[in-house]
């Protein structure tokens, strides 16, 4: 296994680390790990580094890099740098710049995107826009509170000692829930700052139809997903064509702070990559 620093983009704007197995196979897709929130490419508790090295030992190339203005990458200059350009649009453009560079500089043509939190949302948006993406690993990605969510949420409270659970508020990761949840009394789902469920569902179906493999991993550390069956309530109507795998780690927190949880995640990722692309 070897690692190299990669500077790419206009004026070397971006910094990334390419981790290569001893015997690279360009027919295998490369895993590209996206920033989790504002954390740099090392990842929460070095998750990015661990994933890269584990997968390299399993025979996959991995690329981790910082989006513009995050970690060691500079902010974009010129077009696309304006504040009016939506943050996510910039992130999608940054990832595509990375993919363009990797296609031009390596023999790899296909990619799997992995992201935690905002990294998962960005992975979804890039995959929708870019057919070079043949797989996605969404860690605590898009999710929608359903009736089942509320039942589990309040059910737990009715049974537990009186304790107030605050919302997850982190400057580095996660997102604030809406202060007021706007709900249509007729709606079955209660959305929290994500694109409409119908839009995301349609896009997931299109990704599966295109042949994209999808791994969804949710933890107990979000405020919007709290039981395994919720995935069916959210996306049960989507035809994933056998290309979807779901894992729910109720006892893991959002950032896999406990090592046993992180080890389980690493195993899941390695098994999935090997089974789908090995």
């Amino acid at each position, binding site marked *: 296994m070897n*690692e*190299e*620093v990669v*500077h790419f983009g206009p004026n070397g704007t971006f*910094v990334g*680390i390419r981790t290569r197995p001893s015997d690279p196979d360009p027919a295998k897709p490369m895993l590209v790990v996206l920033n989790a929130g*504002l*954390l*740099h*490419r*090392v990842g*929460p*508790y*070095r998750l990015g*580094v661990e994933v890269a090295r584990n997968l390299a030992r399993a025979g996959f190339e991995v690329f981790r890099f910082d989006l513009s203005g995050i*970690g*060691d990458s*500079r902010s974009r200059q010129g077009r696309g740098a304006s504040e009016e350009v939506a943050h996510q649009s910039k992130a999608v453009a940054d990832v595509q710049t990375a993919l363009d560079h990797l296609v031009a500089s390596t023999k790899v043509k296909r990619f799997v995107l992995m992201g935690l939190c905002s990294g998962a949302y960005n992975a979804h948006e890039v995959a929708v826009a870019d057919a070079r993406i043949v797989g996605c690993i969404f860690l605590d990605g898009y999710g929608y509170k359903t009736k089942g969510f509320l039942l*589990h949420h309040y059910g*737990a*409270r009715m*049974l*537990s*000692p009186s*304790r*107030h*659970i*605050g*919302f*997850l*508020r*982190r*400057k*580095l*990761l996660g997102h604030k829930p809406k202060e007021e949840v706007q709900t249509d009394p007729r709606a079955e789902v209660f959305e929290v700052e994500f694109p409409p469920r119908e839009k995301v569902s349609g896009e997931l179906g299109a990704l599966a139809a295109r042949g994209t493999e999808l791994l969804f991993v949710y933890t*107990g*550390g979000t405020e919007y997903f*709290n039981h395994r069956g919720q995935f069916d309530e959210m996306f049960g109507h989507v035809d994933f064509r056998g290309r979807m795998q779901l894992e729910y*780690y*109720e*006892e*893991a*927190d*959002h*950032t896999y*702070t*406990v*090592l*046993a*949880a992180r080890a*389980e995640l690493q195993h899941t990722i390695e098994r999935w990559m090997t089974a789908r692309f090995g």
Partner: protein
Amino acid sequence: MRAFFFGNGPRRRFAVHHDAARETADHAVLICAPILQEYMRTHWALRKLATELARAGLPVLRFDYTGTGDSAGDLSDASVQTWVDDVGDAATELRDASGASRVSVVGLRFGATLATLAAAQSLKVRDLVLWDPVVNGADYLATLRRMHRRMLVDPNRFPQSVLDRVGRGQKRHFPSSDDELLGFAVPPPLMKEIEAIDLATSPPRRARRALVLTTHEDSALPGFSDALRDADVAHESRRESDAGDWDAHARIEDALICESIPRSIVTFLGQA
């Protein structure tokens, strides 16, 4: 700004060099980051500090210690002395990259500890900035252990259903082991080495002068100040705002936001 690896094999370390914005006196700055979860919290703040120092005319090197960040290995490859050697090696890289012969060091938290130990051994340092230094290793680990226990039962981190089961004495599906500290498995030998650290017994004799910046009360600091005086290290201690909240388990993933400390550091290092 240029990122690169230096060293080989298990001692291959990641670094980022910031060129100075303009020609300067023969002087460059090495930044020593915290370890464990504080590394994650402070990356952005230290990059910002590096940018401001470079803008002020000082080339800067940031780097990851052996077994941390993007450097080779993991904590089982690390020891306190390995990390102190990393500081020395990074200073050499900085001299080579910048052409400067005089190196100042800014250390934050355990990075300040390692910088102090390096300057107590063989590293000649022009100016040493110690930002919320970890003076007493045993106190530091005791605080991390307390934070770790609180983190494990934090209702803002784990769902109610899980905490209720834990409260009823059920085993966790993902149990935390004894050598875990806030997201990292710290090997027992490394834990013992950190526990044994008392900077009062290792004053940075090879530093021309030191600036100690603190944002919280630390009962070990007076003893360290005495040691600096006894070792004839010219020094100044200042209390600053920009609280790091280093002992707050609820803030272990909050970015360090600071305004006044970077300005103080740039001003101090800019003095002749």
